[in-house]
C-alpha cells in the first residue's frame, strides 16, 4: 500500500505540468459556466418571483434539463456547437441553472411580507425594494443555490474531456482506458478536493453576516470572472495544426509519449473522446487525430493513415483471450472460436466497421451477413449445455466480433451465450475476465503487452519488432501470470494510427509521421 501511494505521488510529480493545466481548466470550466448561469438564473428567478404564473413552467423546464444524463447532453451539444469549450460550458450552465433559479425564487418569495410592505410604504421603488431588501435578505438562500450548482459543475466538468474541453476528466478517463490507477486517482482526487474546497468556501460565505455579504456581493462577480479566466491560461499557446488525441493515446508509450520521444513531434494537442474525434477531423476542427487503422469512419470521412516510418505503434492483432478454466469447462469452445481465425484482414474489418459506424447497420446484422457470405453460419441449436459469457469493449468492432462468436457458439455447439457488451475500456474488460465475470473477450496483442503486462522499455522494443514476437510474448506471459490463453489471431491489425484528411495531407504533401514533423517544424 505504501509503495502504491508513493507511486501515485511520483506520478503526480512527474505529470505536475499536465495536472496544473487540467486543474486550471477544470476550475475555469466550472466557473465560466457558473458565472453565465448566475447571469441568466438570477434575473430569471427574480422574474418568476414577480410573475408567479411563470414560475411552474420555468422551474419545470430547468428541472427537465437537470434530468438529462450528462453524457447525452454533451452529445446533443456537438452537432450544435462542435467540440471544445463552447458545448461543455453550455451543458454545464444548463445543469447549474435549476438550483440558481429555484433558490432565487424561493429566497425572494420567502422574504417577510411585513418587510416588503414596510419598504413599499416608505416610498421605495420596485428596484430599490429588490436591491435593498429582497436580494440582501434572499442572499443566503441564493448562495446556497450557487453552492449546489458549483458542486454539481465540478463533478460534471470531468465529463468535458469527452468533447475536448479539457479538465481533470482527461486523467480520469485516460486512466480508466490505460488500466492506470495512479492516473485515475491523479484526476479524481483533485476533482474531489476542488468540490470539497469550493463547497467549504461557499459555506463560509453563506454564514457571513449581513454587513459583510453586502460587500461580498460586489466581490463575487469579480472573483467569478477571475476563476473563469483560469480556463484560458493553458490554451494561450497554439500551433499550425491541431491534433485531437484520446485520453488513452495521450498516456501511452505507443501513443503520444512515443510520438514525442521517438519522432520529437510537438503539436498543439487537445484531448477528445474517440466517439467524436473522427467527425471533428472531418469538420476541420481537428487536423491530426489518433485513430484505429481499421476504423470504419476512416472510409466514411475520407481520412488517410500516416505511415509510421519509425515503427512506434506496435502490432495490434486481435484474438480472443479466454480463461483456461473456461476452456476446460467448455471443451468445444476453443475449436469454435478458432473458426474465425485468419478470416478477417484489415480491409475486411474496415468495411465491417464502416457498415456499423457509418451506415448504421446493427452489429448483429453485419456479423450474420459476414458469416453467411463465408459459409460459416448455421442456425442456432438452442442448446443448454452451459452458458458462455462474452465480454466486449465499448466500440463497434468489438460488438461485431462478439456477435460473430455468439452465433458460432450457438450454431456449432450446445452452449448458450450471454453477452456483456460495452465494458468500458481495457481495464474493465480485463478485470471482468480475471474475476470470472466473463469467460472471454477479443483483445489486441499491443494492448495486452502495453496496457496489461507493462514490461520494461527494453522488452517492449524487443518484442514489438514484428507481429509474431509480440503475439508469442503476450501468449506466454498471460498463461504464466493470469492463466489466460490467447487463441489464434483473427487476422487484422487494428493498430494505433495518426490520420489526417486525405485532401489536407495531399496539399501539404504529408505521407508519413516524419513528414508531419518536418512540416510542423518548418516556418
Amino acid at each position, binding site marked *: 500500500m505504501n509503495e502504491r501511494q508513493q507511486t501515485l505521488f511520483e506520478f503526480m510529480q512527474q505529470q505536475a505540468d499536465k495536472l496544473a493545466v487540467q486543474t486550471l481548466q477544470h476550475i475555469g470550466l466550472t466557473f465560466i459556466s457558473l458565472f453565465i448561469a448566475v447571469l441568466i438564473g438570477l434575473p430569471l428567478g427574480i422574474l418568476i418571483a414577480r410573475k408567479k404564473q411563470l414560475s411552474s413552467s420555468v422551474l419545470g423546464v430547468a428541472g427537465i434539463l437537470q434530468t438529462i444524463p450528462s453524457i447525452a447532453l454533451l452529445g446533443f451539444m456537438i452537432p450544435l456547437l462542435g467540440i471544445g469549450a463552447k458545448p461543455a460550458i453550455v451543458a454545464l450552465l444548463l445543469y447549474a441553472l435549476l438550483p440558481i433559479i429555484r433558490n432565487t425564487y424561493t429566497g425572494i418569495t420567502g422574504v417577510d411580507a411585513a*418587510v416588503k410592505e*414596510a*419598504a413599499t410604504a416608505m416610498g421605495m421603488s420596485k428596484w430599490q425594494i429588490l436591491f435593498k431588501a429582497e436580494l440582501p435578505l434572499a442572499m443566503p438562500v441564493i448562495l446556497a443555490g450557487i453552492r449546489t450548482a458549483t458542486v454539481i459543475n465540478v463533478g460534471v466538468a470531468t465529463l468535458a474531456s469527452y468533447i475536448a474541453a479539457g479538465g481533470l476528466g482527461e486523467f480520469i478517463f485516460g486512466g480508466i482506458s490505460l488500466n492506470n490507477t495512479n492516473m485515475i486517482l491523479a484526476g479524481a482526487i483533485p476533482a474531489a478536493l476542488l468540490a470539497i474546497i469550493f463547497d467549504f468556501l461557499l459555506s463560509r460565505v453563506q454564514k457571513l453576516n449581513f454587513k459583510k455579504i453586502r460587500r461580498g456581493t460586489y466581490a463575487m462577480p469579480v472573483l467569478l470572472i477571475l476563476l473563469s479566466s483560469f480556463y484560458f491560461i493553458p490554451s494561450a499557446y497554439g500551433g499550425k495544426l491541431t491534433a485531437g488525441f484520446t485520453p488513452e493515446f495521450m498516456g501511452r508509450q505507443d501513443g503520444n509519449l512515443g510520438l514525442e520521444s521517438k519522432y520529437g513531434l510537438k503539436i498543439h494537442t487537445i484531448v477528445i473522446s474517440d466517439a467524436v474525434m473522427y467527425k471533428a477531423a472531418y469538420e476541420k476542427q481537428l487536423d491530426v487525430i489518433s485513430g484505429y487503422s481499421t476504423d470504419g469512419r476512416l472510409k466514411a470521412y475520407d481520412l488517410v493513415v500516416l505511415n509510421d516510418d519509425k515503427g512506434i505503434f506496435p502490432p495490434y492483432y486481435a484474438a480472443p483471450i479466454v480463461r483456461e478454466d473456461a476452456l476446460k469447462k467448455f471443451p468445444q469452445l476453443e475449436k469454435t472460436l478458432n473458426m474465425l481465425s485468419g478470416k478477417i484482414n484489415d480491409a475486411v474489418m474496415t468495411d465491417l466497421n464502416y457498415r456499423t459506424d457509418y451506415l448504421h447497420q446493427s452489429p448483429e446484422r453485419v456479423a450474420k451477413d459476414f458469416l453467411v457470405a463465408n459459409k460459416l453460419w448455421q442456425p442456432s441449436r438452442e442448446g443448454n449445455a452451459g452458458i458462455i459469457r462474452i465480454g466486449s469493449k465499448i466500440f463497434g468492432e468489438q460488438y461485431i466480433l462478439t456477435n460473430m462468436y455468439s452465433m458460432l457458439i450457438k450454431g456449432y455447439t450446445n452452449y448458450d451465450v450471454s453477452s456483456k457488451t460495452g465494458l468500458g475500456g481495457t481495464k474493465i474488460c480485463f478485470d471482468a475476465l480475471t474475476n470470472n465475470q466473463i469467460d472471454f473477450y477479443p483483445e489486441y496483442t499491443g494492448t495486452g503487452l502495453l496496457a496489461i503486462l507493462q514490461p520494461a522499455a527494453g522488452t517492449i522494443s524487443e518484442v514489438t519488432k514484428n507481429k509474431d514476437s509480440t503475439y508469442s510474448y503476450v501468449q506466454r506471459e498471460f498463461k504464466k501470470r493470469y492463466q489466460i490463453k490467447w487463441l489464434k489471431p483473427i487476422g487484422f491489425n487494428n493498430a494505433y494510427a495518426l490520420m489526417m484528411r486525405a485532401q489536407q495531407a495531399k496539399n501539404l504533401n504529408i505521407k508519413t509521421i516524419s513528414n508531419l514533423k518536418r512540416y510542423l517544424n518548418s516556418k
Partner: protein
Amino acid sequence: MIKAEQVSKHFGKVKAVDGISFEVQEQENLILLGTSGCGKTTTLKMINRLIEPTSGNIFINGKNITDEKPEILRRSIGYVLQNNGLFPHYTVAENIAIVPQLLKWDKKRTEKRAAELMEKLHLSASYLNVYPNELSGGQQQRIGLARALISDPPVLLMDEPFGALDNVTRANIHKEFKALDELKRKTIIMVTHDVQEAFELGNRICLMDEGKIVQSGTPADLLFKPANKFVEDFLKDQRLQLEFKTVCLTDIWSLLPNQHHKIDALTLSADTSLWAALESFRFSNAETIHFSKEDKEVKTIDFEQLMSAFNQYKNKQA
C-alpha cells in the same frame, strides 16, 4: 385634511370596503375600529395606495392621491405596522435613515434627527448600532415609530401598531404615545380591534362592520348616543370602564356641588378622567378630594357626590 369619498374595494366578489366616506381634520387622531375582516386595514392601506380602490376618491389637503406617483406620495406619509417590518439586515440607525435617504437628506441632518427621536422615544443612543433582532418587541415597535416619524410627515398611518405587544408594554407605550409632542402635531389614522385602545387614543372613532362605517364620532358619542344596536353591543362588555375613562371631571363640573373646605386633601386637576378620580379615592383611602379647574376654581368632593354627578350627566346624555 384627509377626505374619503365613496371609496370601495372589491376582491373578486367580496366587498372588503363598501362605499365609505369620512373626513379627518388636521391634527386629529381617527381610529378605525372593528373586528377582523371588517375592512379597516384595507381602508387604511388605500390612503397610501398599498391597495388601490376599486372606486371612489381619496384627497389629502384637497389633492387627489392618484395625482402623484405612489412612491412620492408614500414618502410624505408615515406608516407603522403591527409586525414593525424593520429590515433585519439594517442596523437601527440604517432602518431609521431609509426615508431620509430616499429624500436625499445629507448625513448630518439624518443623524441629528435620529438622535432627537431616540431621546424622545426613550431609547438609548447605543441601540443605533445594533440589529433589530437584538431588541425587545416594545423597543422594536418604538424604532418602527421613529422610522415613520423621522422625516416629520404630516400624516401618520398606523396598522394595529401595538397589537403584538403584551399588556404591560402596551400600557406604557400608550402613555408615551399620548405624551409625545411629535404626535400632537400630526394627523393620525390608526387601525385597531382593541376597544380600550380606541377610546384611550382616539379623538374620533369610526366603528366599521362588513366594509361599512356603522358610526363615526367622538368616544362619548359612541358611548352615550349609539347609532344602533350593533354599536351598543360592540361596547357592552366594557361599557362601565369605558364610560369612566371617557368622561372627564370637566364634563361633569357643573353638576358637582360648589363647595370648598379648607382641609388637607389630595388635589386633582379637572381634566382627569373619572376613572383616575375613582382610582384616587380607592387607593388613597381619602374621604374627600380637591378638584381644581385651571387653578382658579377648587371643589372639595366626596365619593357619593362624584357618582351622583356622573349619573346626572349620563341621564342628560341619553
